[in-house]
């Protein structure tokens, strides 16, 4: 097979620095990182290979790679790196870059390259949302009523709004996911999976989504638990809001059926966010040693959203309807940009990309195994033929 000639792009490494890549150029390719990585296997050898692609600026190859998604940043690679090349951080930055690549709108790219732009957009969207909610609230309800007939922001309307927003997100994420599939699998000449393989591996999607079990292979358990808490908290919250918003918003008594779950989810969220923030401030582990601006924005948003959500809930239970409504507006006006911007364009997209990557990786593994064995057979056949000819 005649290999395709690819032109190297020495500029890409500069580009990636904006996404948080650090000291990639220091890597002298000893291979230590790949060998210590608990996720690397015979089909996916990384992070060294990914570092190499990045050093050389082979954009297409990186685009086609799933490896960055298979990394959960336990940091063993960075700790053992003899040249301080921070492979873990490189993988992190590659995830950001890939997110921006999957995103057809270019918003993601804008956000990752400029935290100021991201902040401005977040604030503008939040303000717009706040304005919208206020106008909506005042136009049809009373600020003194939290629920009931004259509710300032009736849960039914918000429910509809939520579903509307969810539809937008689903469309965005679906398009991006399809792009991801196309870059890595569908349009990748090196991989030709069979339909059966796709179906066979499908169970991976929910499995990975709910358990994040790949992360658990990272040696230490604590980061995985934090991650899981954050993740499950968020997902439970999402489920509650999408399907049981009326229950959540009913009150002022505590409906343990919904609120019990909500408290747990909030606790998980709060726990996860606080651990993450403290860790990042202390730089206590390799994976939190370097924080990209987008990380701070994201964590900040999450923290405020969680806190305002709790505040709103508490105020509501306390009977301070107006305060609760105001808190609710603040909460919602932050939820909107967070969902609208962070989910498809920011870090929350991992929620979709990670399980998808795990699923596609499973597809790749099986396909590669098949391709390799047939290639080996092919070689054997050629060798036999040659032998026979001789």
């Amino acid at each position, binding site marked *: 097979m005649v*290999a395709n000639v690819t032109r190297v792009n*020495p500029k890409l*490494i500069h580009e990636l620095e904006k996404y948080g890549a650090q000291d990639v*150029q220091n890597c*002298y390719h000893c291979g230590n990182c790949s060998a210590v990585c608990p996720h690397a296997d015979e089909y996916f050898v990384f992070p060294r290979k990914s570092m*190499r692609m990045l*050093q*050389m600026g082979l954009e297409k190859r990186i685009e086609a790679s799933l490896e960055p998604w298979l990394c959960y940043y336990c940091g063993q690679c960075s700790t053992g790196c003899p040249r301080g090349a921070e492979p873990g951080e490189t993988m992190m930055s590659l995830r950001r870059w890939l997110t921006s690549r999957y995103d057809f709108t270019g918003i993601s790219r804008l956000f990752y390259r400029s935290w100021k732009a991201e902040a401005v957009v977040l604030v503008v969207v939040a303000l717009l949302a706040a304005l919208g909610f206020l106008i909506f609230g005042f136009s049809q309800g009373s600020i003194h009523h939290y629920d009931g007939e004259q509710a300032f922001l009736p849960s039914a309307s918000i429910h509809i709004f939520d579903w509307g927003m969810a539809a937008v997100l689903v469309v965005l994420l679906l398009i991006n996911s399809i792009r991801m599939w196309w870059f890595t699998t569908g349009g990748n000449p090196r991989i030709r999976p069979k339909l059966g393989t796709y179906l066979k591996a499908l169970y991976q999607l929910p499995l990975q989504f709910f358990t994040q079990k790949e992360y658990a292979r990272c040696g230490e358990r604590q980061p995985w638990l934090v991650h899981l808490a954050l993740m499950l908290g968020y997902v439970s919250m999402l489920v509650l809001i999408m399907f049981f918003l009326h229950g959540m918003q009913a009150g002022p008594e505590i409906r343990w059926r919904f609120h019990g779950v909500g408290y747990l989810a909030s606790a998980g969220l709060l726990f996860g966010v606080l651990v993450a923030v403290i860790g990042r401030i202390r730089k206590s582990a390799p994976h939190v040693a370097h924080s990209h601006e987008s990380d701070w924005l994201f964590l900040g948003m999450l923290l405020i959203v969680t806190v305002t959500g709790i505040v709103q809930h508490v105020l509501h239970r306390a009977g301070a309807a107006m305060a609760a409504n105001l808190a609710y507006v603040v909460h919602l006006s932050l939820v909107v940009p967070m969902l609208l911007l962070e989910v498809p364009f920011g870090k929350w997209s991992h929620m979709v990309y990670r399980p998808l990557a795990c699923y596609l990786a499973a597809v790749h593994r099986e396909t590669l195994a098949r391709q390799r064995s047939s290639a080996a057979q092919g070689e054997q056949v050629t060798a036999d033929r040659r032998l026979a000819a001789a």
Partner: protein
Amino acid sequence: MEKPRIGVFVCNCGTNISHIVDTEAVRAHAQAQPDVVVATSYRYMCSTPGQETIVKAIQEHQLNRVVVAACSPRMHEKTFRGACRHGGINPFLFEMANIREQCSWVHQDRLAATEKAKSLTTAAIHRVRHHRPLNSLSAEMCPTTLVLGGGIAGLTAALELADSSNDVVLVERTDALGGNLARVDLTAPHLDSARDLLTEKLTRIASNPRVTVLLRSELVALSGFVGNFTATIRGPGGNGAGPERQVRVGNVVVATGYQEFDAGRITHYGHGKLPNVVTSFEFEQMLRAGRIETRDGRLPQYAAIIHCVGSRNREFHPYCSRVCCMTALKYAHELKSANPACYVSDIYIDMHAFGKGCEEFYKATSEVKTLFLMFEKNEHPVIRRAGPGEDCDMLIEVNERLSGERIEIPADLVILMVGVEARSDAAEVARLVNISQDREGWFMESHPKLDPVATTTDGIYIAGTCAAPKDIPDSVAQARAAAARILARISKGRIEIDGVFAEVDEDRCSGCRICNELCPYSAIEFDEGKRRSHVIPAACKACGACVAACPSGAITGHHFTAEQIHAQIDGVLA
């Protein structure tokens, strides 16, 4: 020859020998041998009273031969020779039988060991009869040194010798001193000024009255031997026919350096055809002129450096040129320094950053975002002109090993790290000073490990890159090492020659010249006029290769004559 009167001294070595070997039986056996006047055994022959026994016996019994049966001669031959000298006989009229290391310590059968000890002692007695008194010779050591080559190695050696108040004749072929170093701007890995380094040496050479610098001159003949060479040097003049002068020198330092590999030999690098493909030395010129630009005066956006041009290659030179990796890294820094917007690719095989500070330099080069790309040994990158749509002049195609990808590297300027090779005139120099070259044309040291500056011809030393590729500190160290060797010899004024050497009996030499080629030290000279070979004692190391090979038996290896060894063979079998 007077009749041998032999004294035999058998050592018990405490009980080291006597616990296995019946030393008394050995003594009695020796006593019974013809010509043996006295045979004694003693507890420790090497001790002071033991040695005194020997001295006394020599004087009392008018001994003219001494045999000591004790330990290995490698341990105490010198001691007992000293005792013989004290006793008043020539130390070479002595022979040792090794009945400890090679008898009592390796055997357990008392009877067999005793018999063996008797044999060994008998053999020594047989042999010592044929011993002759030998005296050391000495020859004059001319304190002047000839240094060939005015590069950093030659300059260092010359200065080192001249600073110790010795005369030096420094011969340089070209019209200026400095050698290849004069073509370099900064040195790797610390980017120090090569010019300052050289200016210092040149100033000191110029101001040292002990150094005679002969520019545009070359050695055309060298005769004589260590301490007493006569060098014929041809000075400048039309068509290699300048005036010749003869200089008497005691030692020669060959520091003739290297030449660079001709990059044009690798056609797909396009050196000489593609305007912006330059060699490392051409790039140095650009650096010095402050013009790191393409031929048409643009600043290169992409620069590429290709390592191992002519080195580490089946087709050209198999060896590593040792200096290019660090020089290449230096260029990467210099390119970035002159033009921070320039993207530098460094295309290498293995990064040889082995010296002090070099690995750190390599890392620093990575830190300034040099793109390192690895290619397979024996598989050259290919340079071609880029198409009109590209933002670069050239594209370099290579199989990149660290990624496994076949890639193209954009380049506006390509620097070829040309290897170092033996000078084309090295064979001529080797012939003139009588030293050998290895397969690659480098001059051969007498021992690659323990004598890296001496050659097999005594009095001829090699320094710097004429022996193999080397960086500046290693060249300087080697040049100084050569100087040290010479200083040590000069300081004694004369050279002492041990009595053990080979000698040609000119009455029996037929001039067949079989021996000439055999001497690794070129100690055998053939006299064309007399048609006889003769050995230069000062150069002879007494290995005996020529003695064994002389088909006419005309060469005697003193102290290891055929007669002596025959006697010893007969002795062990007696």
